[in-house]
């Protein structure tokens, strides 16, 4: 085991620097790797030109570029053959391995990259621009895949924009509301019976802790889609029970409000568990120290434990926003006009499902990537421990403790038994 791991580590490092070396150092990469690039460039050159192609006016230039690329491939092939023949003394004898030749090869490889890039822009990007132009100007839905997608996104841009705005609103407001609810709930969950409490306070604390536990279990144990339907119809039933007309209820209890309530309440349960992990990672000795100075349980938590616990939880908490962006899509079942609902609407208008749903997937991907980038910048600003994006709710259940961990390690072997049981005693 040990030896294989040691053998793997340097190769991992090589892979990291591979792209840099591709351009800079390795002889093989310059000749063979760039040949692949040249072949791709030649393939682009063989594709039909679109109406937006700028090389259409410079045919001679494109011919020169095409043959330059081909020449590069031929030279590389010759170099390869030479290397295979003289594999023993290639470094010493081959003209390709001389320092001056290597220098020229590198400069030529940059030219190859440039030519291929120009061809890529001319065929692929300008080709896409041409498709967009024709699709936008078209009166009928183009039959081709990309054209159809562009046409539908363009024609349905108002619907998509409204859907994206609603999705962002749901995710952002839902996450913020959930954060504050989760703070409240995690305090209920973590508080303990304290000596000065009278019987009424003790009763309330037991009820509060039990409520938090049950809430977390129920909400995390049922699908959000079911929750949204229950909340929507329950709200409807309650309001109609109070004698409101259906139209009045629709004005107050809109699908958006019901969706926001659902996403907030759902996210609260997950965020509570995240916060609990972060808070429990704070060294319990700090609570003891605060209590020994005379601070109450609430003061010790709010002044010492929560600030550190919340900081520990920031990476996992911010992932809740990313998760909410995606999970808000299930709210379309109650008719919330989010991105998913907008996509279904557009797909229904044109009866072209695959193209619209791929467009929706791209939208969601852009939203989540932007959100996680912004959040990681925020986390860096707040000096919180870094963590990659969580792609499912289950990943955020575990948080790691940073604060206090340095102090925890120094407890030496004195009074072991007392230390172990003391945790519950406070």
């Amino acid at each position, binding site marked *: 085991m040990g030896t294989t791991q040691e053998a793997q580590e340097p190769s991992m490092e090589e892979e990291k620097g591979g792209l840099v070396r591709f351009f800079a150092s390795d002889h093989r990469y310059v000749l063979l790797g760039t040949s692949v690039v040249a072949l791709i460039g030649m393939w682009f050159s063989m594709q039909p030109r679109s109406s937006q192609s700028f090389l259409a006016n410079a045919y001679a230039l494109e011919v020169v570029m095409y043959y330059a690329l081909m020449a590069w491939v031929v030279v590389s092939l010759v170099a390869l053959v030479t290397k295979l023949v003289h594999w023993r003394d290639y470094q010493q004898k081959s003209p390709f391995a001389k320092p001056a030749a290597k220098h020229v090869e590198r400069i030529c490889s940059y030219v190859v990259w440039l030519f291929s890039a120009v061809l890529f822009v001319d065929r692929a990007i300008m080709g896409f621009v041409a498709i967009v132009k024709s699709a936008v100007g078209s009166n009928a839905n183009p039959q081709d895949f990309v054209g159809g997608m562009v046409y539908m996104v363009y024609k349905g841009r108002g619907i998509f924009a409204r859907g994206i705005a609603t999705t962002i609103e749901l995710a952002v407001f839902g996450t913020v509301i959930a954060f504050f609810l989760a703070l409240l709930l995690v305090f209920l969950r973590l508080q303990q019976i304290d*000596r*000065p*409490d*009278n019987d009424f306070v003790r009763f309330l604390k037991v009820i509060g802790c039990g409520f938090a536990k049950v809430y977390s279990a129920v909400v995390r144990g049922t699908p959000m889609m079911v929750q949204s339907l229950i909340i929507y119809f329950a709200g409807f039933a309650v309001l109609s029970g109070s004698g409101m007309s259906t139209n009045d209820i629709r004005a107050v209890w809109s699908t958006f409000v019901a969706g926001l309530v659902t996403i907030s309440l759902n996210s609260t349960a997950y965020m509570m568990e995240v916060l609990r992990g972060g808070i429990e990672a704070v*060294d319990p*000795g*700090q609570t*003891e*120290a*605060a*209590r*020994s*100075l*005379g*601070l*109450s349980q609430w*003061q010790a938590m709010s*002044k*010492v434990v929560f*600030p*550190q616990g919340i*900081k520990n939880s920031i990476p996992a908490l911010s992932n809740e926003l990313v998760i909410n962006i995606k999970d808000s899509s299930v709210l379309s079942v109650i008719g919330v006009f989010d991105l998913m609902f907008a996509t279904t609407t557009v797909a229904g208008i044109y009866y072209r499902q695959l193209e619209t749903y791929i467009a929706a997937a791209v939208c969601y991907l852009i939203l989540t990537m932007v959100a996680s980038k912004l959040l990681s910048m925020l986390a860096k600003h707040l000096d919180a421990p870094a963590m990659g994006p969580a792609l499912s709710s289950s990943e955020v259940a575990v948080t790691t403790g940073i*604060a*206090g961990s*340095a*102090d*925890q390690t*120094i*407890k*030496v*072997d*004195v*009074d*072991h*038994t*007392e230390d172990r*049981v*003391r945790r519950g*005693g*406070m």
Partner: protein
Amino acid sequence: MASESTQGREPVIRIEGLRKSFGKHVVLRNIDFEVMPGEVVTIIGASGSGKSTLLRCINLLETPDAGHVWFHGQDLAAEHVDVNKLREKIGMVFQGFNLFNNLNVLQNCTLAPVTLKKASKADAEAEAMRHLDEVGLADFAKSPVTSLSGGQKQRVAIARALCMKPDLMLFDEPTSALDPEIVGEVLSVMRDLAKDGMTMVVVTHEMEFAKNVSDKVVFMDQGVIAEEGDPRQIFTNPKKPRTREFLSRYLEDKPDQVQEA
């Protein structure tokens, strides 16, 4: 010594019939114990003998199963006593320092006075600076506590406790987490504190400190006080065989201290 001059005065702490068990494991059985004002009491004993638990019962970090803990005549162990109010007068220093990592050195010291005594921030800071100066850390007032060494952390912890102007200081193995070279800086602060007349209860493995600084030594074994008395008597002529055994093993490890004794 202090114990003679305080004859007839009210004890700061009087413990009667204290019992504590964790599940089936009995840690303290029937402890009776007194600390007079200005007295320095050290508690020694093997690991697991209940020293730390006894100390933690004094400020109710551990709830006793039975018995009384009288602090200035008020029973801390009674139900529904406002322990928070009483803890303000009992400072505690922990083995693991337990500084508040989200606050800097000065804020560590001012948090409790500002929160509990409603002291103005300026007054609390002036007081904190005075105590930080006493422990030799005034220059570090604005430093984050995570940047300090162990000895510095423990001295901040002492200053933090002093800022509440306690009547009694509890030390729970304050030097056990420190490497031998910096144990001295913490012990000298404690020595100064004892000289100033602070009432102290110290759980420690530093036998030299117990012998030279304390007015009374309490030797604990198996959850009971096996022997207590004057440090000179305990360290030179222990009465109980268990005390003799514990100290002899200890003194064998440190031959230089045998000569001093």
